[in-house]
């Protein structure tokens, strides 16, 4: 059935972007009807104001279906792909394009922007709501007897801001309403009209926990758009720096989760390892957090010293033992924050969170263990001296799509280049799917565990809001 849908998409009009096809409205509706029974995962949904684009994955191949936007909007994908809900609401907020049959509730615009639909050709100024939009509680919260607690956007922690409204009828959370937009910086508007080198500076600062992944995905999209091959040294540097970033981000989450879970030994070791990794990054490319290392083509030394690597490997083995020791962190967080394989598939969650759901029940223990495994794999990758081959561009006619594996899952970038400047851009970050799955993940959890569960998920509001 997936092959049928893919064939239907490929019958559309080809575009300058390899793998993107424009469908007539009837074909788009036929695609939605067939998606009900197909297993084609949706990876992203966005608009450029003229068309709406849906990114699917067939096997390992990306496939983009586009449809022109009419005055009524476009037929919604959310009835057949739940993960499209957030993206449809974002498109409505930014462009004013409604999804027919989908929700029009705001996602990013909480009523404080000075203009409505800021990306539309004729965005209108609005007075704004001084108090922002109010929550409308559903029946689950009403059943909770008025017991409602908030979480965020300012908890004195170090994460990007977002708000959760939690309904608790008893000890466990029953209703969760996320409120996003606090971290929205208008990146799509900012990138329009910039030269790629300037755009790359902003892309590197989408999310510090996945900066290399964003830089690599953007660089790949740019190479496809401009038709220039990516040099082998740049590819190898990207692989190495991606591994370093994965290690650092996973260690940061392990340190956070260990500290919140009351495992001081794990927390101290993870934090010490993290600091060593940051120092290595500074020695390699002059930056602890790996900003601006991929574009322009990296000239960094793609080799970590053997002694540094051996130290990290030894510490990783110790961290693994500490994690699984009796009464260690693994036992303390077992059964909390379950993200099952079904939930992951429903919301289009990929990456280490999805892998954790495959290897067990998908609770925090599985997720942190998956991160420990990925640290080990990344250290092995660094020891094997990654070699990259030059990447041949696809398309080269002004439009490109690129992706890279980030610490929380795959990161996608699409861009259209006109006269040497970015004309349109989109970024797909795994955090958007995680935010949408939060009501399921937090269901039944104790309020005191919310911070812990969020830390282990690797959810970044700044990646979700852009």
């Amino acid at each position: 059935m997936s092959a049928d849908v893919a064939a239907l998409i490929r019958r559309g009009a080809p575009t300058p972007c390899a793998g993107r096809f424009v469908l007539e409205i009837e074909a788009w509706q036929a695609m939605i009807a067939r998606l009900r029974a197909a297993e084609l995962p949706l990876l992203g949904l966005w608009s450029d104001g003229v068309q709406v684009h849906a990114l699917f994955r067939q096997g390992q191949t990306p496939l983009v279906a586009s449809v022109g936007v009419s005055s009524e909007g476009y037929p919604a994908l959310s009835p057949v792909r739940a993960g499209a809900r957030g993206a449809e609401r974002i498109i409505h907020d930014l462009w004013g394009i409604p999804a027919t049959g989908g929700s029009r509730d705001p996602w990013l615009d909480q009523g404080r922007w000075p203009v409505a639909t800021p990306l539309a050709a004729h965005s209108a100024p609005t007075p704004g709501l001084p108090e922002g939009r109010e929550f409308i509680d559903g029946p689950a919260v009403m059943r909770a007897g008025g017991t409602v607690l908030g979480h965020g956007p300012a908890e004195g922690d170090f994460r990007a801001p977002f708000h959760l409204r939690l309904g608790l009828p008893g000890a466990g959370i029953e209703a969760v309403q996320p409120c996003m937009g606090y971290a929205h910086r208008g990146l799509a508007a900012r990138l329009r009209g910039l030269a790629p080198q300037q755009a790359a500076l902003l892309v590197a600062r989408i999310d510090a926990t996945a900066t290399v992944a964003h830089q690599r995905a953007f660089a790949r999209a740019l190479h496809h758009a401009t038709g220039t091959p990516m040099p082998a040294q740049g590819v190898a540097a990207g692989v190495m720096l991606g591994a370093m970033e994965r290690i650092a981000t996973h260690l940061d989450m392990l340190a956070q989760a260990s500290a919140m879970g009351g495992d001081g030994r794990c927390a101290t070791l993870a934090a010490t390892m993290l600091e060593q990794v940051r120092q290595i990054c500074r020695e390699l490319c002059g930056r602890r957090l790996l900003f601006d290392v991929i574009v322009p083509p990296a000239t960094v030394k793609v080799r970590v010293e053997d002694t540094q690597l051996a130290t990290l490997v030894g510490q990783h083995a110790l961290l693994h033992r500490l994690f699984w020791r009796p009464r260690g962190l693994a036992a303390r967080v077992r059964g909390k924050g379950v993200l099952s394989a079904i939930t992951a598939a429903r919301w289009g969650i990929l990456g280490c969170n999805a892998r954790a759901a495959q290897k067990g029940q998908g609770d925090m223990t599985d997720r942190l263990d998956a991160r420990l495994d990925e640290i080990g794999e990344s250290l092995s990758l660094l020891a094997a001296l990654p070699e990259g081959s030059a990447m041949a561009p696809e398309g080269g006619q002004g439009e490109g799509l690129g992706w890279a594996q980030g610490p929380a899952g795959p990161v996608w970038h699409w861009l259209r280049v006109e006269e040497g400047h970015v004309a349109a851009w989109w970024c797909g970050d795994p955090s958007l799917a995680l935010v949408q799955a939060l009501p399921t993940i937090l269901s039944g959890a104790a309020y005191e565990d919310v911070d812990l569960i969020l830390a282990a998920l690797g959810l970044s509001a700044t990646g979700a809001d852009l």
Partner: protein
Amino acid sequence: MAQLNLFWPEGMPLPRLEALDIFHIESGGCTGCGLELASLSRALLAGSHPIRFVPTPRQAGMLLLTGSLTVGMAPVVELAWQAMPGARVLAVVGDCAVDGGLFGGNYAVLGGVGARARTRVALPGCPPAPDEILAALVRWQTTEGKR
């Protein structure tokens, strides 16, 4: 003189300081400054240092902002500031918080609080390293903070 040496193998000498409770708000940025502050917070906690990050503005003497101040976070920052007791100071860390950095004003961003309010500590950088942040805090506390 205390030594802070969890993350600096050679050790970092620190003068004896008054207690300083800091409430941090990420006001809309890439969280790079937040990551470096988290590293600093862990080091301070491990060293039982009197400078510490607290989970509520109601017990903080310093409001430390990172990020470019989105329009959504502006009222949150205002509320936190109003909730702080007694004498309080504002600190901004990172290019975004100092003057907007790469993220100047647009429909969603006000462009950093450093250009809009009187700050006692302003540390640029993208992001500044933990030792630079600590040095700026210690410098402020040993000079202005004692007044």
